[in-house]
């Protein structure tokens, strides 16, 4: 039996700041329908389903019970991952490589506009004994991380602003992105400080959507029209204690990418990877993650971003989808939207967002529970 696994179908609902018409389950149905159609399969062909969701994001408890019907998965094998979408992809890869399933659907959704104050959810994510400070926005953690990253690398705040400018501009070419816009670095630097040095426009704005990927064994993939092979996956979680983490470096992303590169047989990522989708929930994270993933030497990301090296036409296009800053932040669906974007790049179907020679790509994601996937 072959060990190879491919993404054979991708379907998503365009990300939007608001989606008053549809429920998240109807959005999931739409994404699943598109993904199954893209793969040339029906819901009955899928052997196992993985749904990525978390109770506080849905406003219901025991959310895993709410996921089967919109995927065509009632009375079928389903499990839920309360983590990042890429952990759902990793779970699907394992289901296929262990021979349990030939076709697996991975679903994630984000009805962010249903959460009236996401900061309340973020605050409750902090340790109640030691880390919750009453009365202040939970973005303070990112503000402190950004300060330390800039301190250790000497990166100027202009480079962080340039990440926003680039990703918002990239998003203009991506029809599923919610926040395409032409901005200048000064527009970003003039936006209000939230937790200085972190500014309002450096925080990715939330968006609603749903996305489904279909993964297949080699045998099943051969029967589908457009397989994109997954060469490596990796994931790693840092210590949950803020006091035990590195504030300047994304250690989790280094480990996750090393795991993925090893599986893929990639020895020189900066030379072999043609484009990358990396987490930019906060703009500075893109710089931090590019260095952690060894795509850019440490403390060099700012210079390369300022020189335009990570633009769509640059030496290493980064987040040509628009990233979270341009597409919208969509909770645990973020990584699946980015994986879908990478699949379209590799197929040459990215339209105006297409980068040249998109043969090998990495997509990587990080916040507090971190993993990484290499396609």
């Amino acid at each position, binding site marked *: 039996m072959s060990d190879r696994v491919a993404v054979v179908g991708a379907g998503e609902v365009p990300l939007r700041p608001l989606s008053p018409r549809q429920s998240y389950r109807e959005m999931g149905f739409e994404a699943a329908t598109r993904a199954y159609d893209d793969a040339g399969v029906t819901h009955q062909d899928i052997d196992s389903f993985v749904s990525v969701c978390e109770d506080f994001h849905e406003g219901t408890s025991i959310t895993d019970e709410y996921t089967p019907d919109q995927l065509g998965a009632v009375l079928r094998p389903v499990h839920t991952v309360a983590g990042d979408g890429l952990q759902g992809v990793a779970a699907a890869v394992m289901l296929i490589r262990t021979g349990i399933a030939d076709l697996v659907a991975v679903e994630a959704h984000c009805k962010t*506009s249903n959460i009236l*104050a996401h*900061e309340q959810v973020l605050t409750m994510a902090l340790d*109640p*004994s030691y*880390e919750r400070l009453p009365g202040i926005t939970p973005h303070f953690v990112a503000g402190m991380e950004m300060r330390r990253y800039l301190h250790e690398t000497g990166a100027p705040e202009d480079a962080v602003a340039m990440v926003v400018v680039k990703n918002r501009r990239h998003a203009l070419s991506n029809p599923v992105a919610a926040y395409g816009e032409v901005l200048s670095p000064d527009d970003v630097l003039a936006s209000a*400080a939230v937790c200085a040095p972190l500014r309002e426009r450096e925080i990715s704005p939330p968006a609603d959507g749903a996305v489904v990927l279909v993964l297949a064994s080699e045998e099943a993939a051969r029967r589908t029209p457009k397989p994109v092979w997954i060469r490596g996956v990796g994931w790693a979680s840092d210590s949950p*204690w803020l006091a035990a983490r590195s504030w300047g470096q994304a250690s989790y992303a280094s480990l996750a990418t090393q795991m993925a590169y090893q599986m893929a047989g990639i020895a020189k990522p900066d030379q072999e990877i043609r484009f990358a989708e990396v987490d930019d929930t906060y703009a500075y994270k893109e710089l931090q993650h590019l260095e952690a993933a060894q795509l850019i030497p440490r403390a060099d990301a700012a210079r390369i971003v300022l020189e335009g090296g990570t633009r769509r036409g640059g030496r290493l296009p980064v987040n040509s989808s628009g990233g979270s800053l341009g597409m919208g932040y969509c909770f645990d669906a973020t990584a699946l939207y980015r994986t879908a974007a990478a699949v379209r790049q590799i197929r040459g179907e990215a339209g105006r967002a297409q980068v040249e020679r998109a043969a090998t790509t990495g997509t990587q994601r990080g916040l507090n529970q971190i993993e990484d996937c290499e396609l």
Partner: protein
Amino acid sequence: MNLTHARVWRGTMPVQYLYTAGVAGERFFQTLRRRGVLAVTRCAECQVTYLPPRLYCERCFADLSQAWAEVAPGGRVHTYTVVCEDQDGHPLDPPQVVAFVRIDGTDGGLIGRLLRVRLQDVRVEMPVDAVLAPPRRRRGRMDDIVGFAPRRALPRRRTP
């Protein structure tokens, strides 16, 4: 969006919790309340000192329940941020400076507000000491540490 025109229902998730400090947390908070110093645990094998203290080493998985030590509540500003919004996104006036303080003699640290310092004088690696609530007003919680202040600005007296 005007929510009155959308088919939505407002709701809350009214769930209440108790958070257990645990064996390590209990010792930390009682030591802070009674004597104004910080209880930490040390892994001799890994040469790591945990603050907040833990009963186990996250590196080698050793049991640290017998490996307690104490340190003074002072250290250096490892990083900081100027918080300009409250939890609901409204402006905080004046802004508050929040820091992660790497406590001397440990590999960990504590998050707290910076006090008695002008914004333009805050620096990464600046030495600070904890400002503790008066002994009788301490409750064995994180807010027994009111914040951290630059070391030179503190009056010359020993920590109680």
